[in-house]
């Protein structure tokens, strides 16, 4: 009987100790905010274009954390969807066409002699990448432009073009090899010879 009581007593004591430790850890290592939102936000392309239907990338990250579909981001494209799927452990689905299609990286260019200096594009730019003042010609800082298209619509004289960023020798990257060809069945040397004979 004593051993039973002793065992129970020890277990109770242990549970109290561990409970105290856990309770302390909960307070000590408490994480403010929702870390998953930050992680999702880090994967989004930060173009702030609003094509997902949210005013910016972070609101969409919050929406994803609350269960919205992960395929509403055209600038991120399939690679972003894949990354989100990996992070959230859900299935990677193809991009939702309703929100736009994945296109090559683009940058806004103002045809400067046509600009009337109305500052509307400056107000529309989510990353302050357009320089200019009222009745002065505006211009886009190409390095800062995320290619979000938001400045095109407000321009009253349609002088903003979205120009694709071409590949230069510095940004060029190697192609992926073809892989194992489906028709490469002439593995044996004699097969190849037969082919030559034809």
């Amino acid at each position: 009987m004593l051993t039973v009581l002793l065992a129970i007593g020890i277990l109770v004591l242990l549970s109290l100790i561990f409970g105290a430790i856990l309770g302390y850890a909960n307070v000590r290592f408490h994480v403010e905010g929702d870390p998953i939102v930050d992680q999702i936000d880090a994967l989004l392309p930060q173009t702030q274009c609003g094509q997902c239907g949210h005013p910016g990338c972070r609101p969409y990250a919050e929406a994803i954390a609350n269960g919205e579909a992960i395929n509403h981001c055209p600038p991120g494209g399939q690679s972003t969807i894949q990354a989100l799927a990996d992070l959230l452990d859900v299935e990677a689905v193809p991009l939702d066409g309703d929100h736009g299609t994945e296109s090559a990286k683009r940058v806004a260019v103002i045809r400067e002699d046509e600009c009337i200096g109305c500052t509307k594009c400056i107000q529309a730019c989510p990353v302050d990448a357009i320089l200019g003042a009222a009745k002065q010609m505006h211009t886009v800082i190409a390095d800062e432009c995320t290619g979000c298209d938001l400045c095109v619509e407000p321009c009253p004289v349609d002088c903003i073009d979205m120009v694709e960023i071409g590949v230069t020798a510095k940004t060029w990257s190697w192609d992926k090899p073809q892989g194992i060809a489906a028709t490469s069945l002439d593995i044996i040397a004699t097969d190849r010879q037969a082919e030559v004979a034809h």
Partner: protein
Amino acid sequence: MRTEKPQTAKVFSFHGGIHPPENKAQSLQLPLGKPSLPSELILPLGQHIGQSSRPLVKVGDKVLKGETIAINNGFLSSFLHAPTSGTITAIEERLIAHPSGLSDLCIVLTPDGNETWTDLEPLNNWQDISKTDVLAYLSEMGIVGMGGAGFPTQVKLQGAHKNPLTHFIINAAECEPYITADDMLIREKTLELVAGIEILQHLVEAENVIIGIEDNKPTAIAALKTVLTQRNSDIQLAVVPTKYPSGGEKQLIQLLTGKEVPSGQYPADIGVLCQNVGTCVAIHDAITQGKPLISRFTTLTGDALKSPQNVEVLFGTPVAHLLEYADYESKKLSRLIMGGPMMGYTLDSAAVPIVKTSNCILAASKKELPAPAPEQACIRCGMCEQACPASLLPQQLLWFSKSQEFEKAEHHNLFDCIECGACSYVCPSSIPLVQYYRHSKSSIREAREANVKADLAKQRFEARKARQDAEAAEKEAKRLARQKATTNKATDAKKAAPAKATPTAAAAPATNDESKKLKVDIAIGKSKLKKLQKQLLEAQENEHVEEISNLQLQVTDQEKAIAALEEQLAKTPSAAPAAPAANTEKATPAPVSDELKKAKVDVALIGVKLKKLQKQLVETPDDQELKDKIAAFEADLKAAQDIVSKLSSNAQSSTNATAAEPKAVMSDELKKLKIDAAIAKAAVKKVEKALKKAEEIKAPEADAIRQQLKEAQQRADELEKALANPETAAPKAAPEKAAPTAENTDAEAAKKRKIDLAIAKAGIKKAEKNIQLLKDQGKEESEIEASEWPKKLIEAQQKLAALEAEEGAPAPVEKTAEPVANSEAKAEPEMDLATQIKKEKVAVALAKAQINKLNKRLESTPEEAESIKQEIAATEQRLQSAEALLEKLIHSQTNMQENR
């Protein structure tokens, strides 16, 4: 000083490596060649790692041999010099030697054939001046690493100062098959090489200086030994066994020191510096003779060349010129490679120039370099692992690269791969492993760059948001301050007027709070209502019958709730002013206006309901029940409007009674009257609309509505009259003040015109959008015509045109009048003219944009061609007139300037 033979250093070994056929003998049969000057030299601005150089010359400039034509652009960049004297004929995009086969910006130099050197300033006192100055001098001489990547030498030497150097290694291994350029360089310039090494040793002060050379270059080794013995040099000579890739920087370091460069670090981190022999010679030439880096040794080899050899070639020489020089047979040529067969890349064109890092041109025949065999499945033989000189797991990396699992590939140290090609060489399944790794590396690099850019965008976005928030907060604070000031005034006034002010003062904030709460409730209710209405609309579109009835019920409930709340709200403020009963005369107008407000709200509510029902009616024109409902609502509306008119007339009379009050009250009255008139006008419009709709559906109550319309118009007229009377009275009261403000009113009128213009424009935009929406919804043309939008569009456009004419018209009159008035002040009209010209330019631009837009629409909707064409014609007319005006203005401006 020792007198014995040059020391030979201990040689270690590295993992893996292969022994491909050397094929070095071919290019060593002939002595060093010196090709003639080509017709033009093409000098790419990005010949090295890092930022492209910045050109210093213009097209047409004459340059001398060795003159600086481009300077460094940032830290990791280099200078570029004219390889010969001549004229700069172009600075343009040309094909460059790059695996991508892309073009890049190049300076094109046409030689004059004189080879006139610019003044050379050798750095003879290099032993006395500071090392930093020597490094800067090397940078100005355009010295970059000539072994492989073209890393700016001064940057590498600066990096070597981080840690005390134990080993300074000179890379003479040249392990890649076919290439003999370094071998030839050592044979030809042994003295210069050793002198160059001594200069470098002075700069870096390493404990050991070792030349690493492969044992397949006996002539070069012998030459080096002789010179080292002659000079009694400290430099050690290490002959390493021939094995590919012992010439790799990290492999040679391991061979000569036994130390491995840790992953992700540089040789300098373990106290080792490595320099290519070519770089050492270039440094010697730069310091002792003042010659910048303008040429190099390059191997021309391959079966397609009849006379393979090494040449000393000027940078910018096109490869085609060198092939010509080495008698190439175009029939035999199957692949043209820059670099060696292991690490080189295929050139698509022979027009590309030789650059600072081009050590070999391999013109290979088909037999010599057959097309790669087709890739087959990996059989997990492990030979790639045996061959890898970086001790990686090529198989694992292949899996990860194939399945795009770049993160895992990185974990397996993909970036330690030196892309030597040993694994591909030994692979029995002919898998192009290196190509997979290169693809993975560039994908990872791209992703990293995108990440950096995303972070930047995020930062900027957040900064912008913070700024906007701050601005909004500032505005809000100002607004609150203003509000506080006004309420303070009001309470002060109240305190001053009645003696028993204490209870009211307490009551006022309470009622304020209450009304605030009520307002919030109303806002919430309204937003809910909006949502419900939206849902209802959707349901109607999708024809879900049950949902519609359900939602309609909810909508009416919500509307009732809001109405109740509004009633309550209307009551609460009336309670507050009722308390100070002392001055009832002043208090009376308030309840009246409250009642009026309530009645107006009722009118508005009924109007909304009516509109909705009418909308439904348009969709289901045969619904008798709906028609009945509409009739009932219209009756309600009329009753409510009657109440409003009665109340407003009451209000008028009550205010008329206080008309003797000072001007402030007067303007209040005016305001109220104006509002009433506007409301009446709106009512007229509404009724008109209802009438139109009724006519459209041939409803029997059209007559009744017409009657209503008449009444409403009458009311509006009355109100306007009433409005006119006090308006005429007001200026009489203060005629003296009115005179000086005439200018102000002019300005105000202009402002108003502008606002009208903007409103008209917005109207056009809205109408266009709505038409577009209707089209998108797939409505028939006739339906679109039937809806009021096209009419509205035309109306708005007319209005806009009228307004624009108005805007334009008074201006020139003023302008013509002004110069007469002040003929002396010429600057002012000119400036006005300038602004006017600007304005006209804007108008022209706008008209052009509109034409563009219309043309676009014409393309997309050919069925509407007629109307759009008309519009285009109208806009073009406008454009023409604007342009004519603009021309006239410009003409007059030039005239004015000429007169001056």
